[in-house]
């Protein structure tokens, strides 16, 4: 398939796939589910083909596809993929397929559920693939509505509260993003093209000589960062996450944790940093500190939870802290970037951590969901002895949780350790604090496993319902475990495609900061 159409297909296939669902008879639930699975599977196949055709030796954008969308405001419908977005795209396809498979527990108004689900997938793909800020923003918001309804209609008891909290947080963030977007638009001769904007920021644009002013960059960066940090979620903006996770149905929690959180990190890497290098550098230490704090804070908070799903949610906060940390370890000494390789390592680690977390936390939520489907409660203290009645399940769950714990040989390890290793160059203090996270993580995960899986017998309600996983669940479980092990043992499979793009990114950012620094000191800038 020709490159351009490939991306467009990946983005719009799910939404188009949703249209025939309207014609299905409301009673043909099985049929609709299989239809949905087929759609997500096809999308995943397309992403895999993208992976095949992708040339990981190039660093720039590939499969670029431009066509004017709103000519007056010169907004383009432009898609493209590079090493940074490629893994996330594939991950999205993967997670969507799995959670679609996990959607059999949904029984209420299946049609609506599937339609919203597919639209959501389109939105997520669009976010990762769009190269136009405006388009990015639109897709970013497109996810909002389906997610709102998916949580609000199919969620748990306090679903409405959770849904509106999620909606409100994201909307508030995106209003800020909108303003930042306008800033760049009007300071760049009316362009939304992310690459062009990045060029201007690095002063290498053909059109313009000067780059964005410092104050503007700082302001824009703060607004963008808040917008993305809400999704990430980073410390002060994370309170929507536990509620959303706890209330959302299992498949949606899988998507939330597996893909949506990644958009925060992706946004920071793809937009916030390249567009305002000065602002980024200005805030780097704060970002790293925030990341470290989130690591510790999330771990502590997780330890105190009694709701299984809430615990996993807080562990997400903790894990995504590593992402923020890895991104931010950009050390500058009078204008020169020191130890760029270590920063590069940090960025790689952050990306890896995103994928790894996408696998592990998806798995964790799935495992929680399996239990919840059987006994309909999530109170950790009421569990125990699950390993006796469901040994197969317990074994898979253990692997997944160890992946979350960051055990070598599983995907969680590489991202965490590399981002921490990369941090010493930036700030030993932060590195040490972050490293202490390994103890806490081990603490709460092992304690949880002891309380849930180990022990002689299950004393909670519905003990009769505890039957071994069915084949569909086993398939999901094994796929997750396999990927977790694969990326844990052969991380270079993931590093190779990312490497080029990230190297280019760090180099251009470093150089652009130098130019800007020079400009400041020759005081050409406000």
């Amino acid at each position, binding site marked *: 398939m020709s490159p351009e159409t490939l991306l467009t297909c990946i983005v719009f296939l799910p939404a188009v796939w949703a249209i025939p669902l309207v014609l299905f008879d409301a009673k043909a639930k099985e049929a609709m589910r299989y239809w949905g699975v087929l759609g997500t599977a096809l999308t995943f196949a397309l992403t895999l083909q993208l992976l095949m055709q992708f040339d990981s030796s190039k660093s720039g954008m590939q499969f670029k596809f431009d066509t004017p969308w709103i000519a*007056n405001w010169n907004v383009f419908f432009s898609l493209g993929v590079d090493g940074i977005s490629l893994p996330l795209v594939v991950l999205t396809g993967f997670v969507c397929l799995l959670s679609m498979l996990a959607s059999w527990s949904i029984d209420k108004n299946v049609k609506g559920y599937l339609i919203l689900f597919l639209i959501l997938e389109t939105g997520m793909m669009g976010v990762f693939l769009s190269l136009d800020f405006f388009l990015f923003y639109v897709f970013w*918001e497109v996810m909002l509505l389906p997610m709102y309804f998916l949580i609000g209609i199919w969620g748990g008891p306090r679903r409405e509260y959770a849904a509106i909290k999620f909606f409100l947080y994201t*909307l508030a963030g995106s209003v800020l993003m909108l303003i930042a977007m*306008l800033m760049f638009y009007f300071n760049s001769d009316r362009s939304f093209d992310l690459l062009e904007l990045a060029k201007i920021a690095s002063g290498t644009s053909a059109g313009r000589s000067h780059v964005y002013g410092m104050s503007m960059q700082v302001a824009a960066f703060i607004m963008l960062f808040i917008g993305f940090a809400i999704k990430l979620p980073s410390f002060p903006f994370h309170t929507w996450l536990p509620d959303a996770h706890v209330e959302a149905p299992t498949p949606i929690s899988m998507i939330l944790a597996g893909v949506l959180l990644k958009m925060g990190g992706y946004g920071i890497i793809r937009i916030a940093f390249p567009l305002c290098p000065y602002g980024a550098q200005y805030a780097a230490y704060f970002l790293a500190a925030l990341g470290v704090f989130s690591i510790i804070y999330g771990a502590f908070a997780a330890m105190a939870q009694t709701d299984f799903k809430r615990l996993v949610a807080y562990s997400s906060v903790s894990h995504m802290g590593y992402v923020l940390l890895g991104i931010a370890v950009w050390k500058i000494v009078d204008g020169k970037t020191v130890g760029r390789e270590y920063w590069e390592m940090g960025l790689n680690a952050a990306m890896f951590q995103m994928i790894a977390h996408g696998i592990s936390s998806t798995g964790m939520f799935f495992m929680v969901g399996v239990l919840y489907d059987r006994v309909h409660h999530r109170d950790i203290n009421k569990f125990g002895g699950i390993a006796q009645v469901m040994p197969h399940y317990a074994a898979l769950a253990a692997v997944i949780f160890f992946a979350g714990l960051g055990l070598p040989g599983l995907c969680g390890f590489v991202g965490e350790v590399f981002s921490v290793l990369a941090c010493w160059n930036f700030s030993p203090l932060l590195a040490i604090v972050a490293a202490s996270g390994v103890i806490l993580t081990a603490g709460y995960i092992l304690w949880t496993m002891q309380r849930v899986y180990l022990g002689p017998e299950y004393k909670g309600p519905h003990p009769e319902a505890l039957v071994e996983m069915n084949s569909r669940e086993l398939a999901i479980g094994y796929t997750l475990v396999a990927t977790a092990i694969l990326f844990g043992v052969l991380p270079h499979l993931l590093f190779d495609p990312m490497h080029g793009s990230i190297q280019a990114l760090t180099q251009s950012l470093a150089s652009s900061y130098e130019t800007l620094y020079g400009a400041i000191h020759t005081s050409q800038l406000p």
Partner: protein
Amino acid sequence: MDFEALFKQFLSGDVAQQASILRSLTIFLPELVLSSSIVLMLVARLVSLDRIIPTHWFALLGGMTSFVIVLFQFWEFGNSQTVPVEVFTGLAIHDEFSIFFRGFLTFFLVFVIALTVLTGIPDDEDAPDFYSLLCGAVVGMMLMSSANHLLMLFIGIEMASVPSYAMTGFLKGKRRSSEAALKFVVYGAGAAGVMLFGISLLTGILGTAQFSELAPRFQAVFANHAGMQDPATRCVALALLMIAVGFAFKLSLVPFHFWCPDAFHGAPAEVGGFLSVGSKAAAFALLVRLTTSLAGDGSGALSQLSLSSGLGLGLIAIITTTFGNLAAYSQRNIKRMLAYSTIAHAGYMLMAVSALLVLQSVQTDLVFQGNHQENGPRAMEGLLYYLCVYLFMNLGAFAIVALIRNQTYSEEIDDYKGLAQQVPVLAICMAICMFSLVGIPPLGGFYGKAFIFASVYEATNVHWFMWLVLAAGGLNTVISLFYYLRVAKTMCMDSRPADAVPVTLAASSSPAMYVMLVSGMVVFLGIIIDPLSKVALHAAHALF
């Protein structure tokens, strides 16, 4: 002057770039068609033709014909080198801008008539009266949109208002309806009076009522002495203020909005939909025309004038938006809620006008213009786009309200609980309209808002105050989320109470089709933006 002279003048006007009476009449054709359809309807009832042909066919026919004619005029402008001309000896003007609005209004008229037919308001007895009132009001609005003279301005507003008063009170038997009508008429008359007085003062001092003349005269009067000590200045300020009151009434801006919630509450939903879109659009057209012509080339005192009036409008916009959103939140009756949301949206649109004025005030500043090209038209484009989307989303909401009312006889939000289970079509379309009103992509509402915010942002380069406006806009977007979401939530997430009146609507029935068409347009305008925004920009250029 003998007959030949008159006739000759009739055929070919005597003043430069003014159309002859004949040409004027041809240009005036859409309005004429509508008026004649009114006459036709009344005559039809006289000869009781309406027993055979339902009256709404006449109205529909008239509306469509005039729409087609407007389209033709637009096309004419499009490819032949027709230039804007003043018609009827300068009382009105004929340019893309007016054509745009006349097209908008006639198009809207057709939709409203279709809606009334589907919802069965009015019954056959009153149909001729109702539709003639409707068409008359539209004619008035079209006059407003092409007015070029303060007299025309007043006539237009009155012609638009008087039928609306009657339509508000159309449900004769209903206490509320009559009460609403009374409040509306008295309030409207009062506002009109104030406005007229303002007009009298303005014309008196500037010695002209011609829009195109206003700016130069203003220059002439205030070239030597500006400042508030000067009685003339004060007087003009007062006059402008009084005129503004008239507009504020039409646009239901705080603190001249009081009529709006009550009138909407009392009036049938269809009328509410008509008023919330039509009169607002016309009023904005008129406002923009007046203010731009007042701002003139923005030199000297004019820059001062347009800046201060722009900021003033900005302030009012902030208050209006915030007030509307806050007040809407606690409403139980959906028509009332929509009324307040109308107020809020008037605020958003006013932001565009204020941004326009603020930007106009620096149009002589070439350095600024250098790196902010054609920002005025941009602001207008935003406004126009917003209006077009607003047409669909608001009409859709009101239509759904009317359809549900026909079955449940209730307009309380609480009675909408769980409608998604019974009539998913209505629920989904309502959700689309609501979210579009919030301004969430990929629904049309977002783009209008985004464009307006864009020009407001640009205006921040001129005056810091616009930052407040921008912030207010953003903040209100978030606040407004609550009550719009509440409707969507009630319909989609709550479960239908057992004792609630069941609602049935086949997805294939024509009302459902209508609703789907309207809300489909909202989505469409959220995905295919280019054509409309081009047209809007084109129309906006006519002003500058």
